Each structure stands twice: as structure tokens, then as C-alpha cells.
């Protein structure tokens, strides 16, 4: 088992290295930090533009391979992901934002797994009954709504509700606004901020887990071993719980592991709608500022998330499914 995981890790590290390097070249080819300065009227002297671009190692007059070499040396020897065009270090900007994003994403993920799997099981047992049909139509509807639309509609409803009641119940921007020392008030304040973004992120997660869990359970519910269990006299509910549900949770666990990266990209929209200063909004800002180093660092972080998910999925399926052999 350990050997298998190590082998996988080694493979993933190589993949991550190549993918990140490719992103670096892609970003260098498509982003033009010089235009940040040239678009000013009057633009600063060319010599000073070149100097500040050189300081951040993003000067397009230096061959890209030389810049890549410097960038890579910085990361490998000093864990330094470079500077933004405004000369602020990337490392210091990313770390606190990861924390904000994780704060936002964790609750939503846990809630959507719990709700999604329960609804999926509920509807699978009642296949083609009215409960199943109704919940499925609702799920299909929410599945296709773009996150931006969902977020903005919820903001609109919340603001109208605040105005209707005449008191601020929901906050639609940021994560904190309380600055006193009372821990209870601080927590209440966090909740007031967190409720709406969490709803926006929980709904799409819930419906996708609902639909997939329903399919997986329906696949296993008609399996031979469940029929055997029924034939031996096990009640339907018990047969489903003990035999069908267990195997159907394996692909769901794999899905959860793989969703780590997609949660992160889904949060980009939510963070923009609710003005939360997380990783997603940092990425949008980096793209807008032609910040090559910043966007590559974010892409690398996204890659780490994907591969962590893939590794977790490997381990989950090896652990849960006795049919998988690790050779």
C-alpha cells in the first residue's frame, strides 16, 4: 500500500511540475505586463518601465527561457514565487487568502455532501414515485443555473428582506465586520456573513451529489448480492443500508475527492459576488493586472488541489473496494 502511494505521489509531482511550467509559458505568451505602463498617459520613461519589469522578472525583452530559469530557481531554492508587477511578493499575498477561501468552502462542502447523499438515497428508494420526480426536476433546474445568476438572485432576495424587515440580518459583502473583543458577537457576525455564500455554494453541490448518488444506488440496488440478501429474508431497508448503500458510496467518495479543485474554481464566482477577498478574487485581480507570477502561483495551487484529490480518490477506492488490487 505504502509503495503504491509513493509511486503515485512521484508520478503526480512530475505531472504538477510539467503542468505548472506549461502554465508559466502560456501566461508569459498571452499576458502583457508592459501594457500596464504603456496605457498610462503620458507613459513613464521606457528605461524605468524596463527596470520595474526586470525587478519582477516579467520583462518581455528578456528571453522567456531565461525568465523561466530565474523563476524556477527562486521557487526551488527559496520557495519564492516571485513578485507582482507592483513589486509585492506573491507568497505573502496568497497565504492569508487560502485561509479565507478554505473558511468559505469547508462548511458548504460538508453540507452539500450530507444533503446530497441523503436526498440521493431517499429518491433512489422511491424511484419514479412523485417524490423522486419532483426532487429530480428541482435538481435539474438548479444544476443548470449559472453560479453568478444564483448568487445575484440570492443577494437580491436577501437585500429586499433586509429592507423589508428594516434590520440588517444578512451581510452581502466580506467575511467580517465586527471588530470588538466579544467572541460570541464575533461568531454571530461571521455567521451573518457566511450564511449567504454558503447557501450559494451548497445548492449546486447538493444537487450534483443528489443526482450522482441516486444513479449509483440504483445501479447497486439491483445487484446480485442485494437480491441474495433479500432472498435470505432481509427487510428491504436493511438490505439497502447494509449491502447496496455501502458499495454505492465508493464512487461518491471518489467524486468528493476529485471535487476539491472544482470547489475552488466554483468559489471564484461566489467570492466575486460577495466581495470576499479569497483566492478566487485574487486570481481575477492577477489576470486583470497582467500579473504572470501571481496567476501561475494560483494555477499551481489549483494543480496541487486536483492532485491531492486524485491521490485521496486512489486511497479511498483502494481502501473501500476490495475488488481493486494495487498492482
Amino acid at each position, binding site marked *: 500500500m505504502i509503495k503504491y502511494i509513493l509511486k503515485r505521489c512521484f508520478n503526480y509531482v512530475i*505531472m*504538477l511540475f*510539467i*503542468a*505548472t511550467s*506549461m*502554465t508559466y509559458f*502560456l*501566461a508569459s505568451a*498571452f*499576458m*502583457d505586463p508592459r501594457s500596464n505602463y504603456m496605457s498610462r498617459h503620458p507613459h513613464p520613461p521606457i528605461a524605468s518601465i524596463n527596470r520595474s519589469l526586470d525587478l519582477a522578472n516579467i520583462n518581455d525583452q528578456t528571453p522567456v527561457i531565461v525568465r523561466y530559469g530565474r523563476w524556477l530557481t527562486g521557487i526551488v531554492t527559496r520557495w519564492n514565487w516571485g513578485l507582482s508587477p507592483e513589486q509585492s511578493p506573491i507568497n505573502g499575498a496568497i497565504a492569508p487568502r487560502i485561509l479565507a477561501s478554505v473558511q468559505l468552502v469547508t462548511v458548504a462542502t460538508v453540507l452539500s455532501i450530507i444533503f446530497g447523499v441523503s436526498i440521493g438515497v431517499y429518491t433512489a428508494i422511491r424511484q419514479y414515485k412523485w417524490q423522486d420526480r419532483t426532487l429530480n*426536476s428541482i435538481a*435539474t*433546474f438548479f*444544476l*443548470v*443555473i*449559472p*453560479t*453568478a*445568476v444564483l448568487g*445575484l*438572485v440570492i*443577494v*437580491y432576495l436577501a*437585500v429586499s428582506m433586509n429592507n423589508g424587515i428594516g434590520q440588517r440580518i444578512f451581510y452581502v459583502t466580506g467575511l467580517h465586520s465586527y471588530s470588538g473583543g466579544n467572541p460570541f458577537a464575533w461568531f454571530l457576525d461571521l455567521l451573518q456573513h457566511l450564511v449567504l455564500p454558503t447557501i450559494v455554494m451548497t445548492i449546486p453541490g447538493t444537487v450534483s451529489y443528489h443526482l450522482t448518488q441516486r444513479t449509483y444506488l440504483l445501479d447497486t440496488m439491483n445487484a446480485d448480492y442485494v437480491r441474495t440478501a433479500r432472498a435470505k429474508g432481509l427487510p428491504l431497508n436493511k438490505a439497502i443500508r447494509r449491502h447496496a448503500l455501502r458499495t454505492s458510496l465508493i464512487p461518491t467518495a471518489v467524486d468528493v475527492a476529485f471535487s476539491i*479543485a*472544482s470547489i*475552488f*474554481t466554483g468559489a*471564484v*464566482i461566489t467570492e*466575486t*459576488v460577495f466581495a470576499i477577498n479569497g483566492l478566487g478574487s485574487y*486570481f*481575477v485581480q492577477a*489576470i*486583470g493586472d*497582467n500579473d504572470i507570477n501571481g*496567476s501561475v502561483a*494560483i*494555477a*499551481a495551487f*489549483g*494543480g496541487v*488541489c*486536483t*492532485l491531492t484529490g486524485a491521490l485521496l480518490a486512489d486511497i479511498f477506492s483502494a481502501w473501500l473496494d476490495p475488488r481493486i488490487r494495487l498492482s
Partner: protein
Amino acid sequence: MSTAAMIPTGLPADPDSAPNSGVDPNTDKPRSDFKRTGRMTLYVRRFFRRPSAVVGLVMLVILLFFALVGSHLTKWAYDQPDFTALSDPPSADHWLGTTTGGSDMYALIIRGLGRSLSIGFISSIAITIIAAFIGTAIAYFEGAVEKVGMWLLDMLLVVPSFLLIALIISGSTGGNDWIWLIFGLTAFGWVGYARTLRTLTLSLREREYIKAAKYMGVPAFRIILRHLIPNLGSVLVINTVLGVVSAVNSETALSFLGLGIKAPDTSLGTLLNNGQSIILTAPWVLLFPSIVLILLTFSVQLIGDGLRDAIDPYSRSAGKAE
């Protein structure tokens, strides 16, 4: 779609499966009292048996109608602001109101709908074509090609494609940006899909007719084109339709973030972005594009689900023999 070697549909109309089929074994011609139902007729009939699929189709046809001729129904153009009506609520003159800049919302939505539709359909079709070729080729050649190909596909999936698309379209300027958006969505959208198609090809490549063609010396490219891809036809059709939904969603997300379609051009996502800041003073700027977007994605999804049921031989819309 090829009619050769499709999966048996298990319907009584199939002459090979029913013992008392209307085929005379001597002449091999159908008897006069026997009428065979064509595959396409069957698909169409099954599709229209689902009310939700019909609703989806009607919705999409209406949206297509408005996207094509809707701009002739109003005197306002999307890029011609009316400075006498800034932030006007919906009225007889401006049917869906105006933006803070005085642009007519109806004209903007028609333009945005056309953009979203063309981006969605073109990139989804392009993704299917690329994924079909690469996915089947990787599975067909087996051995080292398959190993290296799968490794490369996995590697391309490491960095979330959303970030890469945002990266390459950020530099595009107004006018061309929708072409760049299609390019970006296609260039990074096919990878995961090619992986799925490769898995489906694994069982297909072991079939006798593939083996026979191979040993007869048919070139690999022709086997892929003639045998492998047509036999994945149903999957490809369904996924192309459902791919439109995800392409429209990605386009909306990128434009909403200000990275996709930029002024002077417009799309539904760009309109959402404009409406975001004036959500309280001019809610119609946000509400109408949202409704159109939901109608668009929901109708395509309903059509996709209907097609899946119509084409999938294991679907229950064929009815049960009880």
C-alpha cells in the same frame, strides 16, 4: 449515424429478435403486412413521448427565434444608447428597461443571447469532434500510445481549465474576444471528455467487426472514422447537447468576472456583471438576463435528457413489456 452493428433495441419491431418476425427466410424480404419502424422514427417518437423534452425543445426554438430575428422587432440597437432614458424601468418604449448608460435592455439581451448561443454550440461541437478523434485513437492504438496518451491527458487536467481559459483570453480586446473565448473553451475543454470516450472505446475495440477490419488491412484512421466514432454516435450526440449547457455556463462565469466578452460587444454574462452594482436601483438590468440564461440552459438540459432517453436502448421510455 451508422446503422451497422448497433446495440439491439429489444423492441418487437426488430425482425432478428422476434421468432415470428415478418421476414420470409427464402426471399429475405419483408412480407407486405409487416412494417418496420426506422431508427430515426423511433428516436423521434420516443423523444416526443417525454413532455419535459418537448417543453425544452419549444423553449429553445423560441429563444432561437428571438436570437435570429429579435433585433428587427425593436427600433433600438444594442450599441445605440438613448440618452433621454437613463435607467428607465420597463415601458412601452423600452420593453425591458434601459441600463444606466441608456442602452435598451431588450436589444442587449437579444445580442447577448446570440453570442451565448453561438459560443455554446460552436465550442461544444468542436470539443466533441476533437475529443472523439483523440479519445478513440488513444484507445485504438493500445500499448505505448495509450499509456503515453493517458498520461498526457491526465497531465492536461491537473491545472483547472477555468484558470487556463481565463489566462489566454485576458489579452483579447473588444470585437474578437468571442472567437478567443470559443478557442479557449475548446482548447481546454476536450480533455476530460476524451478520457471518457477512451474508456467507452475500450470495449468497442475488442468487437469482431473492428478486428475483422484491422486484419483486412483497413488503415487505422479509416477504422476510427468508419467504425469507432459512428458506434459512439449516441454518446456523442447526447454529450454535445449537454456540453452546450456547460459551455454557456463557463462563458457566463468568465464574462461575469470581466474576463470574457468585453464592451462594446455584450453577452448574457457581461449583462449580469453590469447589473450587479445596480441591483437595488435598477433590478431589471439583472433580472431579465438571468431569466433568459436560466431558460436557455434549462431548455438545453431538458432536450439533452430527452435525447438520452430516446437514444439509450436501456431507457425506460420505450415502455415495459409486462
